[in-house]
């Protein structure tokens, strides 16, 4: 009898083109997503060697990092403009479908892939972007690659990849009220650190995962890379199939039923083993706020910033001290006392319709604190339109938020949405690295609900209490 397999091993085996001793496996890639920042040198490489894109039909491009969220038609920075134009020219030359910045399908690459139904269970998906792990929410094996690998996939539709180790990340129990998928993944990274997933592909399992919507699952998988794992996935179930049904690139009618039957067979088999297992009790997770300069530097809203003196190892001590200094925080300071001056609701982690709805529910009837500049950046054109149809834009605007066009925006500040030096931002994005949102900027990662509450209060607040006050 064959050894039972987990979903990661199954998807992997289905994509092996060639195997030989002393080499990684040659893995077939089903979907290659392309954006403007990590592709120009890859296309140039093809040109220099007289190579073509092997499967333009499995390649899809969008522009998201450099686009302006104020006016889609204007890019002031000539170097950004050049990069955008270069993508357009490359897509024309090599026959790759592109959602240009005025195109109704345009948006953040990890938002539109699922929206258009390009992302499907059991696929191998790559993109020159580390948050490609997002697509794992559908039971796809999806991971970020560098530009040399982008060129390799363009030319051959394959990658040489050593089989990963597999990890079961079990999320037991249910999340409490006011606690979100973002808090769950932050709590995991806070507990196990920013490199516990290095060398692994993770499968998220357990009751807490099963009860999440697709958009919430995307938030969890998105941040797999912040725990060091190139990919993190969730076995597809009814929630997945329901989401996929009727989307543009998903099979229709009978073909859909056939696809679903095939997708059902992907799940991890009874008794399958993993190279590692970690667990977390979802019911114990509280709303999280990062205090430091990597996503593992993360505490519950009820807690205080750590004190380096309590660390034994000198390098840990130094790391905390340096992070506190950069962040302008005092050891032992309650995180709820930290005042903010910027709020960013957006990014491939938290810019989907349900994220905006939940944040709007918190904001409704309130005003943004006068000391805070707050922006909402929908993940795609389509999210923006859907939100406007529901009047979500009005709720934000009446509260004093700026309602923007879609794009990566202030998550990494490659466009003109920048947190100024020393500025402090409650952000729904995925990285709080030094300077991530602008040189000298200070980022605190939170859920959309926590960001919305902080925008109103002017400092971090426990959204569970914030909401309770509303009821009274």
């Amino acid at each position, binding site marked *: 009898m064959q050894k039972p397999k987990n979903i990661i091993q199954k998807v992997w085996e289905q994509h092996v083109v060639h195997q030989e001793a002393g080499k990684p496996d040659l893995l077939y890639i089903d979907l290659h997503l392309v954006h403007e920042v990590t592709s120009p040198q890859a296309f140039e490489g093809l040109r220099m060697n007289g190579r073509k894109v092997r499967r333009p039909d499995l390649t899809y491009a969008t522009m998201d990092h450099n686009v302006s969220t104020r006016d889609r038609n204007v890019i002031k920075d000539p170097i950004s403009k050049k990069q955008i134009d270069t993508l357009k020219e490359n897509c024309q030359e090599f026959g790759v479908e592109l959602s240009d910045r005025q195109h109704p399908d345009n948006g953040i690459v990890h938002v539109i892939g699922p929206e258009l139904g390009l992302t499907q269970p059991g696929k191998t998906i790559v993109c020159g*972007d580390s948050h490609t792990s997002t697509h794992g929410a559908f039971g796809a094996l999806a991971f970020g690659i560098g530009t040399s690998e982008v060129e390799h996939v363009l030319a051959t539709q394959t990658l040489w990849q050593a089989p990963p180790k597999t990890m079961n990340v079990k999320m037991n129990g249910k999340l409490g009220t006011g606690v979100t998928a973002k808090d769950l993944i932050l709590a995991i990274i806070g507990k196990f650190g920013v490199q516990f997933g290095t060398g692994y592909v993770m499968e998220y399992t357990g009751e807490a995962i099963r009860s999440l919507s697709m958009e919430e699952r995307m938030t969890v998988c998105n941040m797999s890379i912040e725990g060091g794992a190139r990919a993190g996935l969730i076995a597809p179930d009814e929630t997945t199939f329901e989401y996929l049904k009727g989307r543009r690139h998903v099979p229709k009618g009978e073909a859909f039923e056939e696809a679903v039957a095939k997708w059902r067979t992907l799940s991890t088999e009874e008794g399958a083993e993993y190279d590692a297992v970690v667990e977390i009790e979802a019911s114990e997770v509280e709303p999280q706020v990062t205090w430091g300069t990597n996503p593992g530097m993360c505490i519950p809203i009820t807690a205080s910033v750590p004190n380096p003196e309590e660390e034994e190892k000198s390098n840990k001590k130094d790391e905390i001290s340096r992070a506190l200094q950069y962040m302008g925080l005092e050891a032992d300071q309650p995180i709820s006392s930290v005042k903010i001056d910027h709020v960013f609701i957006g990014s491939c982690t938290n810019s989907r319709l349900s994220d905006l709805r939940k944040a709007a529910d918190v904001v409704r009837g309130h005003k943004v604190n006068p000391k805070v500049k707050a922006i909402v950046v929908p993940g795609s054109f389509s999210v923006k339109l859907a939100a406007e149809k529901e009047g979500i834009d009005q709720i934000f605007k009446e509260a004093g938020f700026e309602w923007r066009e879609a794009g990566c925006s202030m998550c990494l500040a490659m466009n003109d949405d920048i947190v100024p030096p020393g500025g402090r931002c409650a952000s729904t994005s995925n990285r709080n690295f030094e300077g991530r949102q602008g040189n000298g900027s200070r980022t605190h990662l939170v859920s959309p609900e926590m960001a919305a509450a902080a925008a109103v209060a002017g400092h971090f607040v426990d959204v569970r209490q914030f909401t309770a006050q509303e009821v009274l």
Partner: protein
Amino acid sequence: MEPLRIHTGVVCPLNRSNIDTDQIIPKQFLKRIERSGFGQFLFYHWRFDDDGNLRKDFSMNHPKYQGASILVAGENFGCGSSREHAPWAIQDFGFKVVIAQSYADIFKNNCVKNGILTIQASEEQVQTIMRKAESEGYTLTVNLEDQVVYDNQGLEIKFDIPPYPKEMLLNGWDEIGVTLNYEDKISQYELASK
């Protein structure tokens, strides 16, 4: 890609862990469409202050590390963004080898594709090298064929590397050229999975 077999060079210590690629090459420099010229932006905000002057307290800026070609760091080097601009900057600045306690997966892959050798060493070994690198002109020799790093004071560290990246680095191969030899297999796979 340049083959890398034996390399001797000055060692520059960077005694930090979790150095992310946003630090290695900040986002404002990712807008270029060329593959070269990123070295000037390496660790930009750590090397330069807001007025563009060299920060004296940053190790890489010290005169004794000028011309260094071996970079030494702590755990989880190259975490975060997949930007290949990070290894491009490291290489363009003059580094050929990185020695660290551990690496982020994508970064490590990106280095191999550019002919940069990433060596994993223990915490103790890394700390030993950091200490030794405090003295001026400290050099290490890396022999990839024999998978060993040594100095002229008796230090010798064996390291592991899987056969495939080793072969790639030793020969400086163009990987796409290699893969295109498997064209038939790829076509067969495509036919079978239709």
